[in-house]
């Protein structure tokens, strides 16, 4: 990253990258763009750690009896894979990197509302992450990322408390980021940037931030109760002390189901930017796409009980949760149809970000539809806790969210770095990721219906063929992730200089903010006079 430390040459325009140098200018920065880069580097590191755990798991599963590790090690691998990927990659990924970088620029602000709190968020995230990694180094934790009681409170002999403290602290990072986004979006929009002109990326982050602020405190409370139970036997979750383990599941999923929308909504926001740009056409059904994000945020709080269909939960309660789980699928379907309709009569090109958008639409469709199988209670009774569930949420989280993240990183790479990435390598890597992903996770749907339970260190021999296919896919997928890491690093240092707006995209970040932006984002106060995605150059309308 030698370019990060160069002072501007004589006559060169100062940007947020060259305005200052030295480690202090990064670790004590309050510039949302620099904080976004701090997040970018740290979540990339966590993704690498979490991903390497996944590769070890898949290697172990090549043999029914376990190729490399004993059961305890395997159990720790899937636990740490889940914890790191959920709390230290997926939750912060798009919001803390792209959201942090782009939301102020997209709405025409100089920074987030609370720049110092933004930096505090990153420190909290790092402290949480370091605590979790310390738990790994000390021997790991084996409760599953779901920390179900009473296994986590009474029976596990691993570093449950240390890990829970790590997740607890990182949760505050998420709350503060959400709070910062909500206030920024409400109070700091440029003149003319009405709610109906907000880019959909901003709308989806607004919905995400609401969930972060309302949901995350509940998981924090749950983890505190878990600690009280484990250390002092408070009698909350362990029936031996008068508690009820089902209470833990209700509390845990009250956050953790909405949390999957924290993870996917920002990805939907990215896709809502990519599809119009590369179709050169305004988004179809702007308000439907915007309000569907809000609908997901609201209804998403009312479906947690679908994780408890086989727990002994009352049948009537299950019925309500099942119905609401179908309801929450509707706004996601609306988005997919509107993205598809946006392409109709467009003028479509196939740069790498658009390839990732296609990947997202296809894989998210499969991930969403397989969610309907799990909302159907009788089918869930057979499928829950099998590989079908693993396949389902990886289609949403990896097929959806990670695809959107990579698409977004490629799309805004010129904006962030001022340089272009190599298009040929990038398209090749996108193809490898798509193939590797499907080979990894599609066989797991079949495994699941055949009855293969998840979280198994060893398995019945008849499941070997599908497991080997999945492991082969995982190694391809791993390569697919390493290639972009290499060429993007190269491009950041040596890539050709990017023009101001390489995609011909609409939006303040491309049209009114220099590439890469200066510390204050704009040279003049931006004024918004047109709707978002106005690719055809239409007359402005204040209200559709």
């Amino acid at each position, binding site marked *: 990253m030698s370019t990060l430390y160069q002072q501007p040459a004589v006559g060169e325009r100062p940007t947020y990258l060259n305005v200052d140098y030295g480690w202090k200018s990064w670790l004590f920065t309050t510039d949302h763009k620099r904080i976004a880069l701090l997040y970018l580097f740290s979540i990339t590191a966590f993704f690498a750690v979490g991903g390497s755990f996944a590769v070890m798991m898949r290697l172990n599963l090549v043999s029914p009896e376990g190729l490399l590790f004993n*059961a*305890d090690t395997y*159990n720790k691998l899937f636990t740490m894979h889940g914890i790191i990927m959920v709390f230290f990659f997926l939750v912060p990924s798009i919001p803390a990197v792209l959201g942090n970088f782009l939301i102020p620029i997209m709405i025409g602000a100089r920074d987030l509302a609370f720049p110092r709190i933004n930096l505090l968020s990153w420190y909290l995230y790092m402290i949480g992450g370091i605590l979790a990694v310390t738990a790994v180094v000390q021997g790991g934790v*084996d409760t599953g990322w779901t920390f*179900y009681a*009473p296994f986590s409170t009474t*029976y596990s002999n691993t570093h449950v408390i240390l890990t829970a403290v790590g997740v607890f602290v990182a949760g505050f990072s998420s709350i503060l980021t959400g709070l910062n986004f909500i206030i920024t979006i409400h109070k700091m929009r440029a003149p003319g940037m009405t709610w109906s002109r907000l880019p959909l990326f901003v709308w989806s982050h607004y919905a995400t931030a609401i969930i972060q602020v309302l949901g995350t405190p509940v998981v924090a409370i749950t983890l505190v109760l878990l600690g009280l139970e484990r250390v002092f036997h408070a009698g909350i979750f*362990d*029936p*031996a002390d008068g508690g009820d*383990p089902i209470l833990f599941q209700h509390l845990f999923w009250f956050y953790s189901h909405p949390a999957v929308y924290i993870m996917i909504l920002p990805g939907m926001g990215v896709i809502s930017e990519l599809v119009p740009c590369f179709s*050169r*056409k*305004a988004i*179809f*059904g702007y308000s439907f796409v915007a309000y569907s994000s809000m609908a997901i945020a609201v209804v998403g709080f009312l479906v947690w009980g679908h994780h408890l269909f*086989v727990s*002994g939960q009352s*049948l009537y309660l*299950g019925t309500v949760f*099942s*119905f609401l789980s*179908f309801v929450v699928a*509707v706004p996601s379907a*609306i988005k997919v149809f*509107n993205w*598809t*309709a946006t*392409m*109709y*009569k*467009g*003028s*479509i090109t*196939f740069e790498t970000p658009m390839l990732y958008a*296609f990947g997202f*639409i*296809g894989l998210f*469709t499969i991930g969403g*539809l397989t969610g*309907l199988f799990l909302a*159907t*209670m*009788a*089918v869930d*009774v*057979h499928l*829950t*806790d099998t590989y079908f569930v693993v396949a389902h949420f990886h289609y949403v989280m990896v097929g959806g969210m990670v695809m959107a993240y990579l698409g977004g990183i490629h799309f805004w790479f010129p904006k962030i770095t001022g340089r272009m990435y190599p298009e040929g390598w990038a398209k090749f890597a996108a193809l490898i990721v798509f193939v590797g992903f499907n080979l990894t996770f599609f066989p797991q749907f079949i495994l699941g*219906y*055949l*009855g293969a*339970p*998840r*979280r198994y260190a060893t398995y*019945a021999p*008849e499941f070997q063929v599908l497991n080997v296919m999945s492991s082969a896919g995982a190694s391809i997928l791993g390569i697919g992730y390493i290639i972009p890491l290499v060429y993007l690093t190269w491009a950041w240092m040596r890539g050709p200089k990017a023009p101001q707006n390489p995609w011909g995209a609409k939006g303040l970040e491309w049209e009114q903010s220099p590439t890469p932006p200066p510390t204050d984002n704009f040279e003049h106060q931006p004024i918004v006079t047109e709707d978002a995605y106005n690719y*055809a150059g*239409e007359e402005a309308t204040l209200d*559709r």
Partner: protein
Amino acid sequence: MGGLSIFPPRASAMAGELDALYTFLLVVSATMTALIFFLVFFFAVKYRRRSPNDPMPKPIHSSIPLEIIWTVIPFGFMLIMFAWGTKMYYNEYTPPTANTLDIYVTGKQWMWKVQYPGGQREINELHVPTGQSVKLTLASEDVIHSFFIPAFRIKHDVVPGHFETFWFQPTLPGRYHLFCAEYCGTNHSRMGGWVTVMEPAAYETWLSGGATGGSMAQQGEKLFEQYGCVTCHVLDQKGRCPSLRNVFGHAVQLDDGRTVIADEAYLRESILNPNAKVVAGYQRDVMPNFQGQISEEQLLQLIVYIKSLSNPAAQPTGGQPATNAAAVKGVTP
């Protein structure tokens, strides 16, 4: 096993219908996926930008009819899934009230202990006859487990502190996997075994080979004496504690005015924590807490014994004893 089949063996009465529901879901999902894939692919090819000088396309902002169509039609299919899935779910988790073969399962790290009413016991094996409705009552000694038989398309969590029940009707003789589906610690993946489905005649032969030490009810009766329950819960006359004759399945008047049905959960709570719900007319703090003093298996034996006291066949001739009349109201035997 079944070659390339995407279905596990169908060995219970509901497996066929569940596979039908699953196939319905598959067809709807595959059609929807194919539609989206086709449209994306078709639009991408037909509306690709052919030259950098192509004019910018005219925007199409929205279409209310289209939005309504692609909201309502998918939701209509979802309602079918919801209704069908809910109907089957209620069926799976509501055991028939009569003529079931009751089998009791205790999960502990990392094995399944199975007790039959006749007193036979097994570990990691379950034997059931075809054509018979089998009701399982599940208990856990430690953490949450989940009892999963893919060939029957059914599972249920086994939650410490609760009894859980579900039922199935085996149809096809054979040997099928039994798994623990809820992660429960180190040897979770080895906490499994086999379910053997047998023809009724073969099942009777198998049963007659295994019983030692009396039926579950007899074992429960022994515990009832061993733990001293019998000194206060005197049968058929007024003791310091209520008689347990004809209590199971009947309404019980509590000292705080509430009425509860004396089911497995109530009996369980009253053994482990007797002061939680005291029968009207009896004193608190007479009976010690048995929380932590008694294993789940013994608890199940005691409950089977108490159930047997309400079995019409086991009732003494001469009608209900007077002591029960105080405790039991609104009885419809």
